[in-house]
């Protein structure tokens, strides 16, 4: 795979990706267990968004507005967030395979969230997210420790991530299966493969601001991320406060991952597929890459959700299964290419 010489203009990319997001979103709110005709859907949207005085069946309105649309919005935010995490981690760690799931950060976040539930510290999505953040930070620490302790190198980070994932997934499974209060912990599959099943508007109220704010914070560091291309010393020599930027961006990715895991569980490979595909189209400059990746991640995730609900009739596949179906081949392709270039 060689990179095209001419790059896609960012404006066009954002326009097309925006259109794709609209299309995927429309599919997401039209498809479901219950067939709802288009006019009814449009009426719901007209009433809710533009405050039009239309008569709509409250049940249909509930389905379209409270279930399907909130789900699509959270899917979009989560996709954007996870893709952004992958994009930032790949630049910071200088490893094309870096991604919250493969590095075990999502697994750590799951463990943290489950522990908060079991210990009963605080309540609601915020404390869940904070617990997940603690877990994600611990996973980061563990991976960093393992990777540097075993002699560094890009492959070591991935190996350390595998070890970390296994450890944290085992911890999550242990806590979920041994906990007496099953009603609070959600199923183990949720923490391992993710689910958009129980999403409602309050979840979107957390997901959307988080991804927008973190997106802007990362965009502020776009130049720094570019400068990391040739390593930490090279970045420092270009005037980047590398230590500060590193800590700041690791914290942002840990927080993003934690927030998404506490909402939809651990969904893998989004951070792998999307940034690479986007980089291929708009180039490696992070000023362009970050907004493009967030938008492309949103499209990918909403599309994956639609697929997860339609591939097997009458059954919903875990969202993580669908993303892995796309992610695993991408993983192989990236491995293959890095073999050739090195």
């Amino acid at each position, binding site marked *: 795979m060689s990179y095209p010489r001419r790059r896609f203009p960012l404006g066009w990319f954002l326009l097309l990706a925006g259109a794709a997001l609209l299309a995927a979103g429309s599919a997401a709110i039209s498809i479901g267990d219950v067939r709802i005709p288009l006019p009814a859907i449009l009426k719901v949207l007209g009433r809710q968004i533009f405050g039009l005085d239309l008569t709509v069946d409250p049940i249909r309105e509930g389905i379209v507005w409270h279930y399907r649309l909130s789900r699509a919005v959270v899917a979009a935010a989560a996709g954007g967030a996870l893709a952004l995490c992958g994009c930032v981690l790949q630049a910071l760690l200088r490893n094309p395979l870096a991604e919250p799931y493969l590095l075990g950060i999502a697994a750590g976040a799951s463990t943290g969230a489950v522990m908060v539930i079991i210990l009963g510290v605080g309540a609601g999505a915020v404390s869940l997210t904070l617990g997940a953040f603690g877990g994600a930070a611990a996973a980061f620490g563990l991976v960093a420790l393992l990777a540097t302790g075993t002699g560094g190198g890009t492959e070591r980070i991935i190996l350390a991530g595998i070890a970390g994932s296994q450890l944290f997934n085992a911890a999550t499974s242990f806590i979920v299966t041994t906990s007496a209060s099953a009603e609070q912990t959600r199923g183990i599959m*949720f923490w391992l493969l993710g689910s958009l*099943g129980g999403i*409602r508007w309050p979840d979107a109220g957390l997901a959307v601001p988080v991804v927008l704010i973190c997106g802007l914070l990362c965009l502020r560091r776009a130049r720094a991320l570019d400068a990391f291309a040739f390593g930490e010393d090279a970045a420092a020599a270009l005037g980047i406060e590398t230590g500060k930027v590193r800590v700041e961006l690791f914290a942002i990715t840990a927080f993003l991952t934690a927030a998404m895991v506490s909402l939809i569980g651990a969904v893998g490979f989004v951070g792998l597929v999307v940034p690479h595909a986007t980089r291929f189209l708009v180039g490696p400059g992070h000023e362009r890459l970050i907004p493009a990746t967030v938008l492309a991640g949103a499209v990918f995730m909403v599309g994956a959700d639609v697929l997860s609900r339609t591939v097997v009739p009458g059954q919903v596949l875990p969202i993580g299964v669908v993303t892995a179906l796309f992610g695993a081949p991408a993983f192989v392709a990236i491995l293959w290419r890095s073999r050739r270039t090195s």
Partner: protein
Amino acid sequence: MTKYIPVAVGGLSLLMAAGLAFPALAQVGGAAVTIENCGRTLEFDEAPERIVSIGQGTTEILLSLGLADRIAGTATWVSDLPGELAEAGANLPRIAENTPGFEAVVGTRPDMVAVQWINDIGPEQGRVGTFAQFEDFGIPVYVSPAECAKSEFGAASGDGARSEAWSSDLLYREVAELADIGGVPSEGEALIADSREREAAAARDAEALAAEEISVVYWFSSPEIDGEAWLAGGYGAPQWISNVIGLRNVVDSHEEWPLVGWETIADHDPDVIVLGTMKRRNQPADNVALKREFLETDPLTSQMTAVHDGRLVELDAHAMNPTLRAIDGVARLAEAISALGLTR
């Protein structure tokens, strides 16, 4: 979809259930009691003295037959015992609250295992073990005929599926067989006669309800509180209860407990939602208070007629399974529904 052998087994046992309310027990090979069970022939030269009962439904039948002192171990509890059995079952040894381990069961040195769910002990696989594993130890396994009659043992949502509707005849067959095995056939006959009577009385009381069509769903639990729900399918015990009372179960799946999304449930907008109550806390929505809270706070389900108009009825989850309590469930549910004022 359907597997060949389970269909044959199910067909066979249904044939027996329909034709032989009190199965004539063939006397073969000199054994005192010989019973066809899930495609196997069980022979008992003498009544078992140490029975392990896996599944509360089976345990309650044994208790009702006065066999409490023969029970060497129990497992898979859902609720407290009903008042009339509380005393008899007060000191039952419990191997496990939920699924027991194979060794724990064998370790009690039973001379028979009676199991309510074929998912726990089955022909090819089971959470506890297989028929063959127990036969290796010379322990006969008796499975509830209601389970043998299923067309699929482990369908998508794990509780199997039926091609033929369940009815109390299958239950009475189980009572009669367990009574024969335990050497107390007359107790069995008495229990069946009593249950039939209660069933008939409940049906008479419910006649007034049948004047108007009332649609209903039965919510047992959910794997995720605000996700999809396990609702009663169209061929299990809740369907039979609905038929007796004259309610319309909006779910017509062959699966015993299909997972149904709230989109679909809300779209059908049933008149009444029956909520399972249980002591079990195995699944996120086992607690009936959480079920109620979800229905009343969720933006979609709170719009449903049944939630809106306060037509949420609680029913012992155990009565939604093919057990003796399903008989009582008819009367309880009929009573609760007439209390809602849906009838004229």
